[in-house]
């Protein structure tokens, strides 16, 4: 029955009658009318009507029905209605007061809560107090059901860990970082339940929180928050974390740059998807930071096979780089193992048309031919044949001290053939055997280009693209120096070292027919051929002249 | 300088080296031949290196002798 907004006085008499009748015990509000206050009983005479509603100004409709049994069973069951509904004057009820919206109504009523639940009381649970103290905190009634509030102990006991957390965290609550950036604390349960962690409780990861403790945490920024929480993954995923600790991403963070990824940056936090989704073109997380490389990969035959054609055996990022133990982009010589893990029998396949196929595979990086648009260069590296490692920056410092090792190469200083010879000589020391040699690789200049690989149809098959004096690849020469975190620094080398006779002792192992020929030998050839031609020519001329002379003299 | 003429027969005899050639003829010369054959380049290389020194020595001797004869 809908109440009209008339102001006739007969209504007040009806209320009086109801009060008298209820006092006689003939009118009750529900089965357990006992325990409700007199006022409450009076209110329930109308408010037990399920159809009782009020229109809000914004068009919403607020149900005015209250379940008396539930209210009696709640923590506030012994209170008068007007303890909270302070603006209700029984003599003038219902009134014509307009209410903007249901939310506005809840906000208004919630001011009553603070009559009993004062700041000092609320501060006993600091995190709750922190939430409600925010300027746009939700109204008490938004979280705490209005008429069915239970005691905290009873409520905690009735809920499991996750649902306990969700009583607040399913609502639109938030905190903020020290830098003022807000952090939404709302948890979308459906997404959690669709993730691989669906069987976990909140407290399995958020271990410092729970029914018994919930500190008010403060983080300087979002990144600090992410880094701390990612450490929790280790509890269950120790093997992966151990791999991660050996990775370049870990080294970068340890070095102070916190933008490198931690577990949650790739896997997400609450919405952890199965690994398979991370290995799709659309879902691979690497592209978030390595977009250019990813775009290059997507155009490559691997990316096309994986993406458009759906061949999941085609490699994506983690297949070559490994997901957790990803190393710094390093010396090309080590990378071939990734290609060879799928493409076995390469020597036989290339040997059909390529002379010295095995040597080519050792010295030429795969993208040098299979990414034909890429710019190429020669990269030299001091390689210890004894232990199979590159000589590191530290090893060189031990021999030379800081001054002699070219730094960064940005100032234009290039290593000369003599410099290279010194490095080889000094690092080998006086020991017998010379395990340290300078090896050379023909590689592409940037990682972006290296990913744009084609199949054999697009690959370089013309020998003269490299076996030609002045070929592009031989005009840029660098030397790789390995730093302590595994990253490789490239130092510029004078390209003349490739054809210098002084490189015989240092670059003995790197030689390319036609392109890196020693210029001195060309001079020797010309001299030898000219000599070989001219000495006989002179001798023959002398003989002819002598014969003519003898002929004239009659001999 | 006198020219030196050789008959084929003399050449054949002289081909077997110097002393003991009569004694060696008839025995199996193949191993000896092979050893000399493979030693030849090293001896030849030595001769090549030394020849210019000998030539200059000879020229020098002539010059000194001529100088003494003239003076």
């Amino acid at each position, binding site marked *: 029955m809908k109440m009209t907004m008339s102001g006739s006085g007969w209504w007040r008499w009806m209320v009086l009658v109801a009060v008298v009748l209820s006092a006689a015990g003939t009118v009750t509000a529900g089965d357990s009318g006992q325990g409700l206050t007199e006022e409450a009983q009076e209110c329930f005479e109308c408010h037990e009507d399920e159809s009782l509603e009020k229109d809000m100004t914004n068009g919403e409709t607020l149900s005015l029905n209250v379940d008396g049994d539930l209210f009696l069973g709640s923590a506030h069951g012994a209170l008068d209605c007007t303890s909270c509904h302070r603006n209700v004057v029984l003599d003038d009820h219902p009134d014509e007061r307009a209410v903007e919206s249901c939310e506005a109504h809840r906000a208004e009523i919630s001011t009553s809560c603070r009559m009993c639940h004062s700041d000092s009381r609320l501060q006993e649970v600091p995190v709750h107090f922190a939430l409600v103290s925010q300027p746009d905190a939700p109204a008490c009634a938004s979280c705490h059901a209005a008429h069915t509030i239970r005691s905290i102990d009873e409520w905690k006991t009735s809920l499991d860990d996750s649902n306990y957390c969700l009583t607040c965290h399913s609502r639109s609550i938030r905190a903020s970082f020290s830098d003022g950036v807000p952090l939404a604390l709302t948890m979308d349960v459906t997404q959690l339940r669709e993730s691989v962690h669906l069987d976990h409780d909140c407290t399995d990861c958020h271990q410092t929180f729970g029914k018994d403790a919930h500190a008010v945490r403060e983080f300087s920024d979002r990144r600090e928050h992410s880094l701390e929480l990612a450490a929790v993954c280790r509890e269950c995923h120790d093997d992966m974390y151990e791999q991660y600790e050996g990775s370049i991403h870990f080294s970068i963070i340890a070095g102070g740059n916190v933008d490198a990824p931690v577990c949650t940056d790739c896997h997400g936090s609450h919405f952890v998807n199965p690994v398979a989704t991370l290995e799709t073109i659309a879902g691979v997380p690497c592209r978030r930071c390595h977009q250019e490389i990813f775009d290059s990969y997507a155009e490559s035959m691997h990316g096309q096979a994986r993406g458009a054609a759906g061949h999941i055996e085609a490699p994506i990022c983690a297949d070559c780089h490994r997901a957790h133990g990803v190393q710094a982009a390093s010396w090309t010589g080590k990378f071939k193992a990734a290609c060879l893990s799928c493409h076995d029998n390469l020597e036989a396949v290339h040997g059909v048309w390529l002379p010295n196929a095995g040597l080519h595979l*050792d010295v030429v990086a795969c993208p040098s031919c299979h990414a034909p648009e890429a710019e190429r260069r020669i990269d030299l590296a001091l390689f210890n044949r004894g232990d199979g490692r590159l000589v590191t920056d530290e090893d060189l410092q031990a021999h030379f001290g800081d001054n002699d090792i070219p730094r960064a190469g940005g100032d234009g200083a290039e290593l000369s053939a003599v410099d290279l010879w010194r490095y080889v000589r000094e690092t080998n020391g006086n020991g017998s055997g010379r395990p340290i040699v300078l090896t050379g690789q023909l590689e592409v200049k940037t990682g972006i280009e290296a990913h744009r690989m084609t199949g054999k149809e697009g690959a370089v098959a013309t020998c003269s693209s490299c076996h030609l004096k002045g070929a592009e690849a031989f005009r840029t020469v660098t030397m790789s120096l390995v730093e302590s975190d595994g990253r490789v620094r490239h130092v510029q080398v004078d390209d003349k070292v490739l054809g210098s006779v002084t490189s015989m002792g240092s670059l003995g192992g*790197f030689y390319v027919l036609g392109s890196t020929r020693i210029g001195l030998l060309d001079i020797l050839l010309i001299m030898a051929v000219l000599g070989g031609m001219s000495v006989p020519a002179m001798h023959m001329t002398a003989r002819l002249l002598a014969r003519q002379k003898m002929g004239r003299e009659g001999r | 300088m006198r020219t030196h003429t050789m*008959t084929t027969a003399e*050449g054949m005899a002289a081909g077997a080296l110097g002393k003991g050639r009569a004694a060696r003829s008839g025995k199996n010369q193949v191993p000896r031949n092979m050893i000399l054959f493979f030693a030849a380049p090293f001896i030849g290389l030595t*001769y090549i290196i030394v020849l210019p020194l000998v030539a200059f020595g000879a020229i020098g001797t002539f010059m000194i002798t001529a100088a003494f004869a003239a003076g």
Partner: protein
Amino acid sequence: MKKVYIHPLPVRIWHWINAFGFVFMIVTGLQIRYPEIFGITSFRQAVELHNTAGFVLIANYFLWLGFYLFSDRIKIYHPELNPRKHFEDSLRQVVYYSRGIFRGDPNPHHSDPYHKFNPMQKMAYQVIMLLVVPLQFATGLLLWDIKRFEGAVALLGGVRVVDTAHVLCFIFFASFLFVHFYLATLGSTPSEHFKAMFTGYEEMEEEAGS
């Protein structure tokens, strides 16, 4: 003039295979080393031709070696063990080529089947046939399949060293080609030695009283 049988058939066969073979190797070698200058064949074709001809020449070398090791004509390569005699004969030969030949003097060296070479030639061919040519073949073989022989290549100091040795030998042969060809024209007629290397018979001056 009398004809003396100086060049046995295996030697003649070996010689002409070698002659054309070495010219072929030099031409293909130039194409490999100077691809930006020469355009006779593609780089890969040149490598393949060079490899094939190289193996033919190595087999040819063993034909030469096999013949001489089991023939008494091996003596033409034997060294003169008397140094004094050797230097006297050598200097006599030098004087002939630098003076006597212009004056119409006869050649002081007379070839016979067991003394084919004059002292200068003998030194040269001893070194060429038993040092330089084997070195060229060995370095060429290593370069043919560097991966297969990577132990030996590394022992020698690396590909660069092996290739430099190969190129130095090539420079020598390229120069020698002209000298050898010219010296071959110094027979009784310019074509006499060429014909002899086909027929086997050299024309010699009749000895007085023989």
